[in-house]
């Protein structure tokens, strides 16, 4: 799949672009069903009721290691082709995936932030492919961006527990980006983004793959803490080990599921 020149320009200027549908309804449903099965399995393993498990936990990292369906998803041909085009490179590597389930009613806002400031990666040559597994509306906490703010470069990491980022007059430029299930929002790792609380009675699930230029290197002192550091087996300054940070093949890897 090839984006148009205008679409690529839009991404570089605004820091994000929504493209879709890239995943059909049956596949998004399959991903959700598989995730629900995994949740039941994990709850059982923890000795918790499913209700308590789902009430407490809301983010799962590296599902590609948990189930073949998610492993296939990180290699999705069209999504990864677009990621290559937007990063302008031929080889990309998965930094990590994660599924975020914004629970209904009692979820909180995720404040304005740039992702890259939290990553142990040496250069901001990465993007997130944010696949909506549910229809995402303004009320359920869609992504919001301040277009163009990424061009000011990397800022200090925001404290999610006490962020008071105020855009002042630029607040009017903020764009809310609701998308139907199956659409993907690609956003630059320096994009400024947030999500509001989910005020609906349905969960709001998104499966997010972070792709980086395969020439990025591990730089642990770029961030205070990151859960993927435990999976790194190379020295600082080297490319990430491919067993835990898989190289994404250019034409997909032909999973039969």
């Amino acid at each position: 799949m090839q984006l148009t020149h205008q679409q690529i320009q839009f991404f570089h200027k605004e820091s994000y672009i929504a493209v879709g549908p890239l995943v059909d309804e049956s596949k998004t449903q399959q991903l959700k069903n598989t995730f629900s099965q995994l949740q039941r399995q994990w709850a059982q393993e923890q000795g918790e009721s499913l209700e308590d498990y789902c009430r407490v936990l809301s983010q799962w990292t590296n599902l590609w290691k948990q189930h073949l369906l998610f492993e296939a998803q990180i290699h999705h041909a069209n999504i990864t082709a677009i990621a290559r085009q937007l990063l302008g490179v031929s080889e990309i590597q998965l930094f990590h995936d994660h599924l975020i389930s914004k629970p209904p009613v009692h979820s909180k806002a995720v404040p304005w932030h740039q992702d890259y400031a939290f990553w142990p990666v040496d250069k901001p040559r990465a993007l997130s492919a944010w696949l909506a597994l549910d229809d995402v509306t303004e009320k359920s906490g869609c992504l919001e961006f301040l277009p163009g703010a990424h061009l000011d470069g990397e800022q200090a990491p925001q404290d999610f527990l006490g962020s008071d980022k105020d855009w002042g007059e630029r607040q009017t430029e903020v764009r809310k980006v609701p998308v139907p299930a199956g659409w993907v929002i690609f956003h630059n790792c320096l994009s400024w983004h947030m999500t509001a609380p989910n005020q609906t009675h349905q969960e709001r699930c998104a499966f997010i793959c972070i792709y980086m230029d395969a020439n990025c290197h591990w730089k642990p002192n770029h961030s205070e803490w990151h859960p993927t550091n435990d999976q790194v087996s190379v020295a600082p300054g080297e490319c990430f080990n491919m067993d835990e940070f898989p190289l994404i093949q250019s034409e997909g890897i032909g999973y039969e599921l």
Partner: protein
Amino acid sequence: MSFKISMFSGSTDLDEALTLLAQTAMGLPRDCKTLTLEQAHEYYCSEAGYNQLLQTAKRFQINPLLKLQQLDRLFRDELLSRKALRTHAARNVYNSGKVALWQALWTPFKDKLLPNQALLQAMADFIALNTVQSGVNWLVQQLESMGFAIKHLTNNKHSPILFAHRAAMGMQGHVVLYGHYDTVKPQSERWDTDPLQLTVKSNRLYGCGIGDNKGPLAVRLQTIANLDKTPALTWIIQGEEEIGSPFAHQQFPSLLQGLNATLWLEETGYQDDDGTQRVLARVIGNEGNLPPDRFLWTLIESLAQDAALWNVGYRVESRSLNKDFFENGCPFNKQLPTGARYLAIGINDPRSGIHKPNESIPAWTIRLHQRQLVTVFDWVNRIAPGE
């Protein structure tokens, strides 16, 4: 630099806070290892532990606390979150479970058990100054803003001695405080942190001079600055203690003999490893130390009541603070006039490592010392009129 909760799942801030609170509420040894969350859960959610927590809250006039069942739920949620992170890389996004536990259990006690941000900043500012002149200037600014009149005793060869005095403010009596603003030169390469930058780590504060003597000075300065009433105060602060106090040995004989004080307060004091407060108290006799007199014992009993709030005991020794690093000893202790009542209490402990790399103090002693300073002034006010 602060005692804030971190947004990162890998941080140990909650565990450290709950350990400090358990030490205070349940009498765990002050030198115990940081509790795991599982251990903290067992302590706080046992019937005995929860009752001790309630009693501690009552002592510090904190209420209401969560019910045991609610507290247990919060612990279980956070334990689940941590276990899920370990077993299958799942977590409570942005630590809302950790925040809930922090807010419910730690936030009500935080300001009772840890120094406030203004004091941390004052300590950080003072520790960052590494020249005689900058240290003197900082102290003069602090003291003058509190209404002290300051004499600079100096000559070309020596670092100045500050002789600061403030008349009584609504209280009787007179307290002489001693301190010094010089520090040993830090061997930065042997420190784990920048010695000139105040660092908070595992419920301790690190920095060059944090125990000897910039930390105690900053704590006392901020405490006194926030009091409406105090006895008359004379504060003698020298700048050559770390090289043997040559100028103070010249000046103190005449300086101290001219003072008539209800109490003479040493530069700092210590708690034992387990938290027991070491109270050094004595009366200067014609031929050496005498035990505390009946007045001083009433002060010691009040100080013990303060220590009990923090769940620590106390012991009394009738001697001076040990600092015989130089042949002539401490000029302050040497020149105390006959009949002087001497007290050494403070914020240090055996791990403070005075003059060594990674000098530090335990954070919990600061609030206790601040409270005990108030107790000291109240006592001076009570006994001074009868003398």
